[in-house]
């Protein structure tokens, strides 16, 4: 199970916060902050797994993250997930974002948090991996966007 998916930038500003287990808002912020500090002090050329977050999970949980330019993508997962598999999944997620936003950059995530959520919803559902095939993910997102557009036209 995936416990949480966090995206924040190099300064720790949250860009996407998705918990699959209930935490009150202030705890969520604490977790984001703690995770940020844990990840920040790590060089880019050391491993992408880390343990020791005190707020989330426990000994069974791991943080698996990737650092892209100005953004950190962090997945908090338990031992039922394959570490390397999750790394691949982060890659899939980012590539999907790249496709949907056409050369994604931090600004896209800042201004379209809702869309990022919709994309994530096609990849992970309720903490479980829903789809790993990028073409399938993109197809579903595009179909939903078309549906939204057609509704918009009716509205106009």
């Amino acid at each position, binding site marked *: 199970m995936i416990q949480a998916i966090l995206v924040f930038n190099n300064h720790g500003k949250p860009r996407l916060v998705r918990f699959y287990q209930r935490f009150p808002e202030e705890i969520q912020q604490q977790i984001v902050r703690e995770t940020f500090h844990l990840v920040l002090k790590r060089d880019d050329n*050391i491993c992408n797994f880390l343990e020791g977050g005190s707020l989330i999970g426990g000994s069974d949980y791991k943080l698996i993250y990737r650092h892209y330019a100005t953004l950190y993508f962090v997945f908090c997962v338990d031992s039922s997930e394959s570490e390397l598999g999750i790394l691949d999944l982060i890659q899939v997620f980012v590539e999907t974002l790249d496709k949907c936003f056409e050369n994604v950059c931090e600004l896209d995530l800042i201004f379209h948090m809702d869309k990022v959520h919709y994309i994530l919803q096609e990849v992970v559902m309720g903490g479980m991996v829903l789809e790993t095939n990028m073409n399938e993910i993109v197809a579903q997102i595009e179909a939903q966007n078309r549906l939204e557009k057609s509704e918009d036209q009716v509205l106009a």
Partner: protein
Amino acid sequence: MALKMVKGSIDRMFDKNLQDLVRGIRNHKEDEAKYISQCIDEIKQELKQDNIAVKANAVCKLTYLQMLGYDISWAAFNIIEVMSASKFTFKRIGYLAASQSFHEGTDVIMLTTNQIRKDLSSPSQYDTGVALTGLSCFVTPDLARDLANDIMTLMSHTKPYIRKKAVLIMYKVFLKYPESLRPAFPRLKEKLEDPDPGVQSAAVNVICELARRNPKNYLSLAPLFFKLMTSSTNNWVLIKIIKLFGALTPLEPRLGKKLIEPLTNLIHSTSAMSLLYECVNTVIAVLISLSSGMPNHSASIQLCVQKLRILIEDSDQNLKYLGLLAMSKILKTHPKSVQSHKDLILQCLDDKDESIRLRALDLLYGMVSKKNLMEIVKKLMTHVDKAEGTTYRDELLTKIIDICSQSNYQYITNFEWYISILVELTRLEGTRHGHLIAAQMLDVAIRVKAIRKFAVSQMSALLDSAHLLASSTQRNGICEVLYAAAWICGEFSEHLQEPHHTLEAMLRPRVTTLPGHIQAVYVQNVVKLYASILQQKEQAGEAEGAQAVTQLMVDRLPQFVQSADLEVQERASCILQLVKHIQKLQAKDVPVAEEVSALFAGELNPVAPKAQKKVPVPEGLDLDAWINEPLSDSESEDERPRAVFHEEEQRRPKHRPSEADEEELARRREARKQEQANNPFYIKSSPSPQKRYQDTPGVEHIPVVQIDLSVPLKVPGLPMSDQYVKLEEERRHRQKLEKDKRRKKRKEKEKKGKRRHSSLPTESDEDIAPAQQVDIVTEEMPENALPSDEDDKDPNDPYRALDIDLDKPLADSEKLPIQKHRNTETSKSPEKDVPMVEKKSKKPKKKEKKHKEKERDKEKKKEKEKKAEDLDFWLSTTPPPAPAPAPAPVPSTDECEDAKTEAQGEEDDAEGQDQDKKSPKPKKKKHRKEKEERTKGKKKSKKQPPGSEEAAGEPVQNGAPEEEQLPPESSYSLLAENSYVKMTCDIRGSLQEDSQVTVAIVLENRSSSILKGMELSVLDSLNARMARPQGSSVHDGVPVPFQLPPGVSNEAQYVFTIQSIVMAQKLKGTLSFIAKNDEGATHEKLDFRLHFSCSSYLITTPCYSDAFAKLLESGDLSMSSIKVDGIRMSFQNLLAKICFHHHFSVVERVDSCASMYSRSIQGHHVCLLVKKGENSVSVDGKCSDSTLLSNLLEEMKATLAKC
């Protein structure tokens, strides 16, 4: 009105959207909080408007603010409004907000049930999808129960997109509503072979999650997963399956054997590192499971270790990390193969990456030996000094302690060294693990007797040194060691060299800055110290000295009396009064030392942490019984007195000196001794094993090296452990020399005789004798402690509820709750009153499936018995031997029986839950557990002898008459049929209402027309009435809540109220409907007779033989009996028939005689004794109502006559 709308849309143009909000926040960096609170005010205005688009926009902005940490729960109702928008665009916004902010505590969440149900059955797949996604994040037990059936239907949706989502969300439903697991499992299993890879992967995902928690229930799926593993090409699915196998193999070593080969092939062939890694992991799991009884698969181990070494040496840090992680798993069972890579692992300890260092540390744990422990710990200590982050340093600290203390300090040869290591560790600033060090100090001092003198001197130095006290607030964690130090110095004060000095140290004013629980220990141990000083002084005849000490106590104790901590205050004031009393006595020159030290007489022995739990409950003691009747409500639970004392305090018995005079004290002491003598939990001071040990030194024992302790130990603040390393080396060297000497002598002796192969004197672990007379006292356990392996189970584990046997056939009572038509009970809760429109659209499908499922279940029932054998067959590598000539039907009947009683137990549990809520029945549960354990035990015992297994594997074909299979039976009986429609019905007693039965009528459309406007009219009798909607008259028909397209069937349920249940009765009824096809519509009618048999008033209720015997003895029951001839059916099946048709359960069965039990909905007990003769069966019945009994027996006779 129109104006308002125009105004609304104009307003909207000026509203901020999400982008504007984000931009605004970015532009107000200085006063962000103020700006946001402004925005929230705007949002509140927007939410008040009628326009759904405005609301949706507002909710979208709220979702963004939620991410920034703002609580948006106040808008929960508005979120629900947006969720129920008809447009997908808005709906999606609503569900997203809900998924981010709703949780079990959200009170309005129950309002969503119908909206979600509507969305789930929406014709648009994206509406359904969005609802599923949202629900997966905020499903509650109530939602899970109400929607389980709808979601289950979606698992067979035509669109794979919906199917995979429905499959995944089922896991969440199971977690919240475990009862749904069994009914839904067959379909879930089916989805493992779904044509769509996404759905398949989802199903694998869910089953893996389930199996991870309770693997044993999923063993029977192993062949299916094996097939998937060898056929699938999807790495994601493969990884999950391989991980699952890793969880299954420990339960079934034969599975492991089967897996080794394909996994090894995968390891060689795959290019995906992730897959390779998981394969290696599972092979390791297999090897671990095999290691117990199998010859070593050294080739496989070599392959794994070799692959892992490649990973660890890889430049990719991720692989290095994982390699170490997997290596630590091998370490547990094959330490030798890992130890050869020690160089590599020590190297990783210097890695710049903390995660890697931590993993390397884990490995070290298994690599230590008596020989290298000191060296490794030394290396770790240098790391401790270097470490920057507290997390890593704390980890190092715990590792050092773990490594040293593992398996009862097995590798420690010199405890003085260990104590000095512990003392050195106290110099760590800001560690969180002070209590760990303290626990070790206490443990070692208590359990290793020989070290006490040394420990005490070290501890008194600690107490004396200012650095721990210095700023106790900042170093919060480390001052915990003072707790141990104070206690050790007090308890073993006889070893103190300068007790007076230590006493002064403990009475310093600075001590009052320590946390309360430590001060409390100080206060208590000051008295112990005082007592021993007193004794010394009195023995030496220094009356003045003794009085001086007393005066010191009287002077210093008041600082503790003023403590804000209750415990400290209480102890201090007690002791102060005691000391004052002593002072008075001393003034009169009365010797007091004896009396005072008697307060602390006796020795403390370590007690196993589980000892208390293992004390057996004496016979005849009912722990659940009230001692006093519970008080009335006024004294509610939250007024319960809280535990005042710290938990740790309970380690030692509390001594509570009081102001009572000496006589009183003596009397109390006597009483206490008496009590202790009778108290099994009290740790007695009587001779303990270690004393004997000490008296008889080992034959091989080497004299202890004399170490001049006094010099170095007086200087705290210097690292001392190093010198012990040196000393230890010297000692070992000397030891070796001595041994060599002896060996030479022996050799010389041998030379005289025969010449022996000169084996090189290698120094192995065993050769190093410990320096101290180490008596590692084993922990005490109470006499006749109960063996129990359930100690570790956490009763609050949410996954425990999912520990459900999935191979048992489904019972009727386990069906998922569906919306019932006007069941009086359910209609009370508003959320279930769903408008008809939505029901129509989906119901037919659902019912059809349900039917199918039932069919499947029946087939399964048949297969069930074979199942265990199937797995065995699949697992056995050798072809199954030809059917054994000797018929061995006994075990399998046994098995049937087991399965049956078990199933009934289960059934009862589901049914009995409502009852349980009202009045907890611990007894019942206990029984059930026992039963389960018993059956488990049986199963296990059946599995144990590997040889006999195959023999027991296939007696099914042996054709013994007992084995014949029952034809699939349905509890639904035909009610009426014509060319249009077929009606079947089943009547079930309702547990909740003592005079109600539920009639489930399945209507099947056999024509090519659509059947609509169906109405059921039933003529009530005096005794039986149909429950009708309020306000409708007795003569009105009750509408059937669905239409039937051609070929479709559906079920409707009606509730009847019955006055007297002792007689069977029949009700006449008519079904009227309109049949519509292309040519037109016709009105049709079908008459039927509802037959309420007496059996239908019975509810299967299990009964235990003791209760059953009591019932029979009570004499309140009237008796009657029947006999039926010409029975050829096996007894087993006969009983099954009675159970099935007449709702009985088997209480006990002996040979061809069985006792059975059931209860009516009105609480009549019915007991049966069924005996089988040659060709006949006799049934003796006892029942609290004679009419009911005779009617029941008549019905039974009819059933049996058909056999």
